[in-house]
């Protein structure tokens, strides 16, 4: 490095200041390195997390329908994402029909990158899954999506309310929502998605291959054709 500024030389008498300076430098580096090491090494999937029924690490911790059917459809989504809401409006009748008829294995990966209300919604969807009402909850969460993200709409009260609308009568659902039973599980979903290069929601894979976002997501006919080509009768 050559300086074009005024010619400078290091000060000779820098006794006391140098001690303070080295101390600050040393402490800063120490604290940063230790905290970085702690945070980075902690980033493995959390095996102690409670997982909803039907969930395994092999399927990326997603909520699975028709475990043995083929082909496999994977959907990454965030309940607060407006584009996911549109995707749901366009394709959910068809997808739910496939699930009920057992024509494909469908895996839902509810993500929570938009914030805490996504996390709460994903947790509630998993709670509803334990009661056999995931698909109902899925639809209701999108139908009641807030126009702005993390607006304060998705509270435990709101989630237990729409749980009732979904037809859940069991109080263990309410408890699951209030306690945030599956919050750690949502972290595993995020971690798995990171490894699979999922950069946006919705993202749809059919047999491990991503559909074309520009042409096959928001066009019901094109979406149907893509699935038919993959073997959905």
């Amino acid at each position, binding site marked *: 490095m050559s300086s074009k500024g005024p010619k400078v030389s290091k000060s000779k008498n820098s006794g006391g200041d140098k001690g303070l300076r080295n101390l600050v*430098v040393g402490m800063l580096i120490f604290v940063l390195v230790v905290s970085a090491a702690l945070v980075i090494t902690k980033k493995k999937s959390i095996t102690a997390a409670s997982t909803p029924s039907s969930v395994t690490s092999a399927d990326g911790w997603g909520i699975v329908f028709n475990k043995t059917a083929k082909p496999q459809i994977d959907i990454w989504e965030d309940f607060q994402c407006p584009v996911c809401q549109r995707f749901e409006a366009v394709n959910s009748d068809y997808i739910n029909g496939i699930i009920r008829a057992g024509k494909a294995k469908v895996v839902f990966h509810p993500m929570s990158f938009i914030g805490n209300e996504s996390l709460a919604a994903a947790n509630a969807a998993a709670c509803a899954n334990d009661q056999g009402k995931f698909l109902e909850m899925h639809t209701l969460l999108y139908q009641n999506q807030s126009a702005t993200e993390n607006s304060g709409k998705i509270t435990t009260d709101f989630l237990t309310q729409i749980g009732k609308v979904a037809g859940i009568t069991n109080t263990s659902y309410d408890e699951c929502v209030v306690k945030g039973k599956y919050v750690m599980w949502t972290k595993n979903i995020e971690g798995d998605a990171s490894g699979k290069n999922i950069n946006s929601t919705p993202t749809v894979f059919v047999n491990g291959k991503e559909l074309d976002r520009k042409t096959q997501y928001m066009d019901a006919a094109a979406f149907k054709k893509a699935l038919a080509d993959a073997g959905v009768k």
Partner: protein
Amino acid sequence: MNLIRKWSSWATFLARLILGGTLLAAGYLKIGNSYNAQTSVRVYKLLPVGAANFLGLTLPWVEVALGLFLIVGIWVRKVAVGSGVLMAIFVFAIGQAWARKLPINCGCFGNGGVTADGKVHALTYLTEIMRDIGLVLISYYLYRFPHGKLGLDKAPVIEKAQGE
């Protein structure tokens, strides 16, 4: 001459606060949400997934370190060079994302520069690029004039040129 020198040392202090504060805030926010931090590196599609995720985990700490060093005023010149290079890399990354029509900014996807219907919003990329170019310029200023007010770096003795 003395007046200029006086103002310049305050300008250096201000430059350190702006650049350091931006780095510190950027890094701190990402440390709080490491999955989003990883995504924000992956969206530029410059690195293999594993490398991008690793960088997403480590880069925020580097930013925090650079930011703290600038604010406190340690090794200002070296840290300014590092920050400038980092910002220049960001400018390149955003520029190539713009050219390839890749959505950036994972606030909500399909919104960071490219909407779901494929429309490209130049302003999103442009404001990010302008901001980072501004930070590159501030880094360069700190490289030229690293010694200012309220820093822990020992100010140098300035040898006056003959006849000044």
